[in-house]
């Protein structure tokens, strides 16, 4: 919710001051969530892209709009970092499960209310495994004399075929195995499955939701009635 609350003003206004306020307001959260160090790492990864955004906007717009848009990128980066670094995919899956609309859609499409959230968590989980596989495939093909960075552009793209095909097949084979493993353990089970951890909205959660709603409403209202200057 807070993510949306930050995104709405960040995308509505291209103003340096708004961005600075949004960025600063998230800093304490980074420290509370103890992800400041990892956030700094993702910032470092974003340096090149923010530099690019700055340069492009500097030449197509003005200095201040370039600063504002670069800051906007950093705000988005920070918001998403904060969200994904503090929220485990499992919790997110559980939360999705509690949303009526998701359950309804899931039952409608897939015939089972938990299927959609399960698909989401499974997909997120397979990413690190697939990354390990990718490294192994690259190693295996290099051991057969494959040189990825050899030849012209066309040749280089072709060089990736021996990497992509095994990887794709591994992913497909793994999903089929996973499906069989799930079925042999009784998936999807009966309606009304319970979970070990029940997510419940408590006082602070309502406070966050309230703050977020106020932020969204105020931003939209200001956007409709005033023109916020870039600087």
């Amino acid at each position, binding site marked *: 919710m807070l993510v949306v609350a930050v995104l709405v003003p960040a995308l509505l206004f291209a103003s340096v001051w708004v961005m600075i306020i949004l960025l600063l307001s998230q800093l304490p959260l980074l420290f509370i969530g103890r992800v400041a160090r990892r956030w700094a790492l993702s910032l470092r990864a974003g340096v090149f892209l923010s530099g690019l955004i700055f340069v492009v906007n500097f030449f197509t717009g003005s200095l201040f709009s370039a600063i504002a848009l670069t800051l906007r990128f950093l705000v988005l980066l920070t918001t998403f970092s904060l969200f994904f670094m503090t929220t485990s995919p499992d919790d997110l899956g559980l939360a999705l499960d509690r949303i009526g609309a998701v359950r309804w859609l899931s039952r409608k499409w897939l015939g089972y209310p938990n299927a959609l959230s399960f698909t989401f968590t499974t997909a997120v989980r397979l990413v690190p495994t697939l990354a390990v*596989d990718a490294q*192994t*495939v690259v*190693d*295996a*093909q*290099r*051991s*057969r*004399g*494959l*040189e990825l960075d050899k030849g012209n552009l066309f040749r280089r793209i072709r060089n990736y*075929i*021996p990497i992509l*095909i*095994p990887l794709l*097949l*591994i992913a497909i*084979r793994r999903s089929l195995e996973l499906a069989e493993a799930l079925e042999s353990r009784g998936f999807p089970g009966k309606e009304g499955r319970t979970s070990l951890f029940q997510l419940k909205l408590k006082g602070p959660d309502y406070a966050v939701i309230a703050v977020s709603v106020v932020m969204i409403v105020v931003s939209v209202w200001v956007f409709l009635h005033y023109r916020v200057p870039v600087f």
Partner: protein
Amino acid sequence: MIRLERVSFRYPSGLLALHDIDLTIQGGDFLAIMGENGAGKTTLAKQLNGLLKPSEGRVTVDGEDTRKVSVAHLARKVGLVFQNPDHLLFSETVKDEVAFGLKNFGFTPEVVEKQVGRTLEALGLAEYADTSPFLLSGGERKRVALASILATEPDYLILDEPTIGQDYQQKERLRNFILQLYSQGKAVVMITHDVEFVAEANPKVILLSKGGIVGQGSAESVLSRDEMVNRASLVKPQMSRLFGSLARFGLPRDVVDVHRARLLLEEKLGGVKETVTTNS
């Protein structure tokens, strides 16, 4: 000659996977690297063809430092067969798969075809030459993977768990094949947990534990000693367990293979030998 001098390796994550490894591999050698899961066996294998470079110490292949030459260059001499064939199979036919390495190394089409034919024949895969590797069974895919490396005739062959998923007759074939290779002067290094295979094939055993070499010697001397096998999370081969309990009859403890066991037992039983043969 592949030479590892005081090699240590630390993964970027900070995990110290190898420390102070000294090892020499020469033509005609047959080594088995054994050790518990996570001991560093595969990491060690990847040092041999330059996929991983040592953090400290150095690895040289025929005098060339692995840090200074490309993996593709080393791959011509050092063939590394990965454990899981699914990590390398991608071609439409078994023939193309085996030809991949040869083409990478720039051999002429005639040489490629000749080598592919020979290798498929040698590994009993000739009938699958035009089949898709993905339609083969797990054990067959593993042999295609092996063939795809063998076709390039590397001087040093590194096999990561070659016996997994192979039936007993295939293992027997593999054993003979390895024997053929190292008697031709090639070096064969296999990473394995398969104590029975090692007991019968009798390579020099390098015991790896927690990233360091904790013991080495003949299969007999390593696999028949409790303190050695326990350290590497292995179990003694059946013959060794049998002779461990027969020691009180004056038989040696360090017997691991059927052949030597038979000779010793025949000698011991002496007179009764005849009745045994007539019974069977």
